[in-house]
């Protein structure tokens, strides 16, 4: 099992090594990896028999519920084959398509990485593991879309794709988690067997359904996420053929199929899935009709067809799912083929604009043949698989009596016929415009699309060939019990009539547009979601700049006020929450004043006021030091002689240093005029500082009333003499009991010294020294390189 998934990934180092030597032919070698996987898969399928259901489990991160749990059943084997077989064809196609000068190593490594991720997704049993691989496919797609990374268009397309799929992927993750929390398991097999009513919390189930579907819609480019797919067309055409038509975008369809057994009983399911699916079908067809670029037309038509595929799951909740795999297969065959032919056209003419192409059938008949079949299947003409699949869907809609959706589907099909006709007739028939230069494509490049087209043709003509396979890959819980029987002709019924009508009307629409010269083939601006997305991203940049400015995050003088404000708010909030408990005991505070203490306190207060009020810096400094020295005395009153001594020393040293600094600053007289301008913010400053002061006073009083009855301080007094052999308790604490703190304190002094030293070190300005006056500071000679 693991070999199937990991084989492509393991081939990467080989590719990286050989690519420089083999050049573009390395594509054939690369194709061997998915071929090998396909072979292993076939053997696996054979050994598990019909309608298999095997689970393999290896623990990975069991604590978080993610295990390497793989489910081998019909659906996963089917998708696995699609991925591998189309992968082989794409590799061979790419070997011819990419010219000599591309970075083959990077291209094929990303492609192989993608293959591994896809295989992992379809075989996952654990929903979280599925998410892991899902996101990895998004990453691989990002790298591949942006392959021509020097082009703006590629970069933008890649970014759009990644952001949309990542965002919807996150919604999906939440949905998965909600589902897991409600049901208690992440295993798809268990979930498919269980029933919704067993799970707790109805609100979560509905939410999880919606979120999972959002994820699916995002990946499959359904409305309103459809805009990333045309943007992804900036990728090289093999990538578009592989990822954005055949495999990655099918993941949404795949997921819808996987969660169908879980959610299909919800009413919500029918309306949401049909609604979004069929509306997208119409919308996509409409946009395809109005596009001019070959790949854009194909992209929008993919969007439309994916809507068809998803909508089928919606209808199926009423009528039972029969042939979802047939629908997928049909789309894979013709879309892959059409993309490849578009690539050939692009390769040979250098153009993708339909208006400038024409008459190519003469130069590349084989390609024209493949295109013809592809277009026929797209339009749903008889003898192709497209016809069979459309008939079945219309039949389902009739059975379900869903006339609104029926009408939508019919309308979309009509538009599809129109642009399908344009795709073929305007490119391959008619006359070749003068300015067009064509070179004939080689055989090798035309083979893969031919193979796909032939398959579409043969299976369309003899649909009974598929009966056995389709029955063998049924999945319990998803598919109905009765065996499928496909036939080309089911008799005259509503579906056949409708199809005939569709073809006629579509043809008519085409001729109408052709006559008017496709003048209105321009997508109106309000529907250009991708442009809106880009504008949104630019707008985000502007918005974030404005927001940052508004939050004052770019105005440093605002930082401290904001911090202080936050402090006040949080403390005020805490006190407000239970103010009684904060203020209890305050009434018992001793308010008797002693004259000495009061005198000292008043002196300190007066000198502080002086610092604020006085005009010149020197007088402010004097006031400051007066405050400091009186504080020393205050310490003495607090019975702390050591403290007072330290404070005197530190105070004196600080005053000296400040004086030195002030002597270098320009005179305070020059500054006074600017002080007046500061009056504006004064109220705010007063409020903030007053608030802080009030809070601190409150805290001191609070501490006084709430002090712990048994502090450890007195213990130091007891033990100072006997154990630390010192009579000064403060000293012994500093030096012995808590000497480690003192070590830290000394380290801080060391660092401050080094920092101050570092501030004054400068390098002489080097080579371009056009410096008028060198800055003072002592210089380190910048040694020349020896």
């Amino acid at each position, binding site marked *: 099992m693991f070999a199937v998934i990991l084989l492509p990934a393991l081939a990467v180092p080989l590719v990286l090594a050989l690519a420089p030597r083999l050049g573009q032919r390395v594509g054939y070698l690369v194709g061997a990896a998915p071929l090998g996987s396909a072979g292993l898969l076939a053997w696996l399928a054979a050994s598990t028999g019909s309608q298999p259901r095997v689970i393999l489990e290896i623990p990975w991160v069991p604590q978080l519920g993610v295990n390497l749990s793989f489910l081998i059943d019909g659906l996963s084997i089917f998708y696995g084959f699609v991925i591998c077989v189309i992968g082989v064809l794409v590799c061979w196609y790419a070997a011819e398509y990419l010219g000599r000068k591309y970075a083959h190593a990077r291209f094929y490594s990303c492609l192989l990485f993608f293959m591994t991720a896809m295989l992992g997704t379809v075989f996952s049993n654990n929903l979280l593991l599925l998410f892991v691989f899902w996101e990895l496919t998004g990453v691989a797609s990002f790298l591949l879309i942006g392959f021509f990374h020097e082009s703006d268009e590629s970069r933008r397309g890649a970014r759009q794709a990644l952001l949309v799929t990542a965002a919807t992927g996150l919604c999906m993750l939440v949905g998965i988690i909600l589902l897991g929390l409600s049901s208690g398991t992440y295993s798809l097999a268990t979930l498919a067997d269980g029933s919704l009513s067993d799970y707790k919390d109805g609100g979560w189930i509905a939410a999880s359904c919606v979120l999972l579907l959002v994820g699916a819609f995002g990946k499959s480019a359904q409305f309103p996420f459809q805009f990333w797919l045309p943007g992804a067309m900036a990728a090289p055409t093999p990538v578009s053929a592989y990822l954005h038509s055949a495999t990655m975008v099918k993941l949404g369809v795949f997921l819808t199929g996987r969660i169908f057994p879980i959610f299909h009983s919800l009413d919500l399911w029918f309306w949401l899935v049909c609604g979004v699916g069929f509306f997208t079908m119409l919308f996509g067809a409409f946009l395809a009709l109005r596009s001019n670029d070959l790949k854009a037309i194909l992209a929008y038509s993919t969007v439309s067809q994916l809507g068809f595929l998803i909508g089928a799951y919606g209808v199926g909740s009423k009528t039972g799912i029969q042939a979802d795999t047939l629908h997928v297969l049909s789309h894979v065959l013709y879309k892959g083929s059409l993309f490849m032919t578009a690539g050939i056209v692009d390769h040979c003419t250098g153009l993708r604009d339909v208006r400038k192409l024409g008459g190519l059938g003469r130069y590349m008949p084989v390609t024209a043949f493949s295109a013809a079949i592809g277009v026929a299947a797209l339009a749903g003409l008889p003898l192709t698989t497209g016809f069979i699949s459309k008939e079945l869907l219309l039949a389902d809609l009739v059975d379900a009596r869903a006339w609104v959706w029926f009408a939508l589907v019919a309308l979309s099909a009509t538009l599809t016929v129109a642009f399908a006709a344009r795709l073929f007739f305007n490119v391959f028939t008619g006359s070749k415009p003068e300015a067009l230069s064509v070179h004939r494509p080689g055989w090798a490049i035309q083979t893969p699309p031919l193979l796909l087209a032939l398959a579409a043709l043969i299976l369309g003509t003899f649909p009974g060939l598929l009966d056995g396979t389709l029955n063998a890959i049924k999945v319990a819980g998803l598919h109905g019990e009765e065996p499928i029987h496909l036939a080309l002709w089911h008799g005259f019924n509503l579906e056949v009539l409708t199809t005939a009508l569709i073809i006629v009307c579509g043809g008519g629409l085409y001729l109408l547009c052709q006559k008017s010269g496709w003048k209105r083939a321009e997508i109106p601006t309000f529907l250009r979601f991708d442009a809106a997305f880009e504008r949104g991203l630019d707008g985000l940049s502007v918005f974030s700049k404005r927001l940052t400015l508004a939050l004052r995050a770019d*105005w440093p003088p605002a930082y401290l006020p904001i911090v*202080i404000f936050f402090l006040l708010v949080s403390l005020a909030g805490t006190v407000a929450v239970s103010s009684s408990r904060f203020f209890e005991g305050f009434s018992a505070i001793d308010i008797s004043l002693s004259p000495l203490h009061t005198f000292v306190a008043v002196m300190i207060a007066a000198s502080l006021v002086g610092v604020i009020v006085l005009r010149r810096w020197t007088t402010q400094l004097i006031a400051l030091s007066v405050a400091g020295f009186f504080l020393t005395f205050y310490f003495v009153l607090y*019975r*702390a002689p050591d403290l007072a001594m330290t404070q005197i020393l530190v105070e004196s040293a600080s005053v000296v*240093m400040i004086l030195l600094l*002030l002597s270098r600053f320009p005179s305070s007289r020059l500054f006074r005029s*600017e002080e007046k301008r500061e009056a504006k913010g004064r109220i705010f400053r007063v409020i903030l500082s007053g608030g802080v*002061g009030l809070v601190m006073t409150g805290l001191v009083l609070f501490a*006084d009333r709430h*002090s712990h009855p048994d502090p450890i301080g007195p213990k130091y007094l007891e033990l100072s003499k006997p154990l630390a052999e010192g009579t000064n308790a403060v000293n012994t604490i500093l030096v012995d009991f808590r000497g480690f703190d003192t070590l830290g304190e000394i380290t801080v002094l060391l660092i401050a010294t080094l920092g101050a030293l570092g501030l004054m070190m400068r390098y002489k300005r080097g080579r371009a020294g056009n410096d008028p006056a060198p800055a003072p500071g002592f210089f380190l000679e910048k040694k020349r390189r020896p």
Partner: protein
Amino acid sequence: MQIETALLVGLLFAVSVYLLLHKSFVRILFGFVTLTNATNLFLISMSGDPDGKRAPILAEGSGPIVDPLPQALVLTAIVIGFGLTIYLIMLLYRIFLDAKTTDASKLFLPEADDE
């Protein structure tokens, strides 16, 4: 004594914050010095009311002794604060040398390029 200390602490903090919020380097510097003083006073007040108690020097003599631990903490804090003050002085000097101004708001005018 605690009530006087409480009011004084409040005043010290208020004055220091007021000074800190100014634009002149000198005011900011004075603000920090006052801030260190304020926090030190706050810490020492945590040792409780010193009335009627002795200093924590275990000479002869009896009677209650004031709590020595906050004093030790304040000593450490004073020294650390001193180191920081010196560093701040040097930093302000260096910024003054480079930016040629002692007005903090002038430092942060928007510049030509985004860097």
